[in-house]
């Protein structure tokens, strides 16, 4: 536990230190690195870009993947084997390998690489969203719910939108938060495919590493706080949906 905690603590301390080159503990504490960081328009832009990219990609991924997993789980269970194969594949193929393939396929034919990166992110989120959606659907007994709704005269789409979606919302929300946090920390694809042309928070941090250690740790701390917030949200929502299931 100590081993896991030490680097985090040291980074926090470093981001608050005035001068810390020759002594074991910092010579003084200050918030000026944070002030400098938040005053830097480049940081705000990078933060905004990361946010927009992760947010939009997550939304698109949810819109594409959730209904597809739904209809496969409920109406075509035989196709699940195929989907599971893809899930394994995306999980087993690391970012570097994906980057090679994507560059070969799409570079130099006019499509902006940022779109390609976002596309690769969609596929990268598949394992998390598939698992999340599937678990929610199974917990809900979606198959019998759909049968009941159809017996009562609802069309499939109506039943899906009115009954299934509201019930799996909290589960999907948790998976979406997880997806967002994964994309927010992504470096490999964006660095190899896009590089400096679309500077996300991770790229900004990388560029700042050599410039100022204090500012870099202020970025790291900011990033880490954001991750902590998202994680605590995930925990709270998971608990709530569990609690509700126990009651019902």
């Amino acid at each position, binding site marked *: 536990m100590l081993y896991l905690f030490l680097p*985090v603590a040291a980074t926090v301390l470093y981001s608050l230190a005035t001068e810390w080159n020759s002594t074991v503990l910092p010579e003084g504490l200050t918030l000026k690195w944070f002030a400098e960081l938040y005053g830097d328009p480049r940081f705000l832009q990078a933060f905004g870009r990361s946010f927009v990219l992760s947010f939009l990609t997550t939304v698109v991924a949810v819109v*594409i993947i959730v209904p597809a997993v739904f*209809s496969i789980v409920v109406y075509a269970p035989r196709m699940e084997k195929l989907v599971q194969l893809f899930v394994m594949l995306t999980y087993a193929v*690391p970012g570097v*390998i994906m980057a090679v393939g994507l*560059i*070969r396929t799409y570079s130099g034919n006019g499509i902006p690489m940022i779109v390609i990166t976002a596309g690769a992110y969609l596929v990268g989120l598949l394992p998390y969203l598939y698992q999340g959606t599937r678990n929610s659907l199974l917990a809900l007994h979606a198959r019998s719910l759909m049968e009941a709704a159809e017996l009562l005269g609802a069309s499939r789409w109506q039943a899906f939108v009115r009954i299934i979606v509201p019930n799996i919302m909290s589960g999907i929300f948790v998976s979406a938060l997880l997806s967002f946090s994964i994309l927010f920390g992504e470096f490999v694809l964006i*660095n190899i495919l896009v590089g400096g042309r679309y500077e996300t928070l991770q790229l900004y941090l990388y560029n700042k590493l050599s410039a100022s250690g204090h500012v870099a740790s202020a970025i*790291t701390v900011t990033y880490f706080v954001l991750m902590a917030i998202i994680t605590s949200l995930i*925990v709270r929502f998971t608990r709530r949906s569990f609690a509700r299931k126990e009651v019902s």
Partner: protein
Amino acid sequence: MKRFASMLLVTTIPFFAMIALFLLVPLLSMIEGSFQAEGGGGFTISHYQEIFSNSYYLQAFENSVLISFLSSLIGIIAAVFAAYAITRFPQSLQQRVLVITNLTSNFAGIPLAFAFIVLLGNSGLFVLLAKQLGIDFGQSFTLYSWSGLTLVYVYFQLPLAVMLLYPLYHAIQKQWMEAAELLGASPWHFWLRIGFPVLFPGIVGTFSILFANAMGAYASAYALTGSNYNLVPIRIGALVSGDIFARPELGSALAVLLGMTLAAALVVNEWLTRKIRRDLS
């Protein structure tokens, strides 16, 4: 029946299009590219020949396998004990520890590399501390060496290993332990004869996931020294993105070989766990 087909089609067509466009086509194109002469042209296996005859690339593979194996081994041994320790905590504390573990597993890549620079870099906390105590391990250890990189790898392996192993301990029921104790087994005996064999398939499986995870890791090593480490993912990145000069076909061949290594690790895992399960039953 017709309505059924329409819903299935409407929802799955974008889904499969996405997979085809951003997963299958790029992978196939990469495999095809690895057999192509540079700058287009005919079929050739010269890239593979080059990799297998070039000691530089062979060394990259050796380094990658070595550091992945070592960091996975250290990570899993530590995690076996850490996960067990967590199961002994009271319930509410267990949840909290797991959340923290989960959180630190987000702490990877660039931020992680940076934190280690603060701790152990040239003017890192521990290096300064050691200097004041009169120890100079400048000769034997620096963060930018292999041992330093291994430490960083272990850091991102550990939370993952704990998260994967922790659920396994729930398979070991308290009653087994009580039964074993009644029959006169010491705790040592219990873990050696019952606990460990039950956990073993899971440990092997987790190990192969860790191994694959480390083999594909790129960001941490890249952040520490740019393209200087001779690791397979770093070489691939350099070959395709043109840090030095781009040779995408050779990069493709390297990527195919890396992918085959990962696939082999997963297949061995599958085979081993199945074999062990059969032995147990």
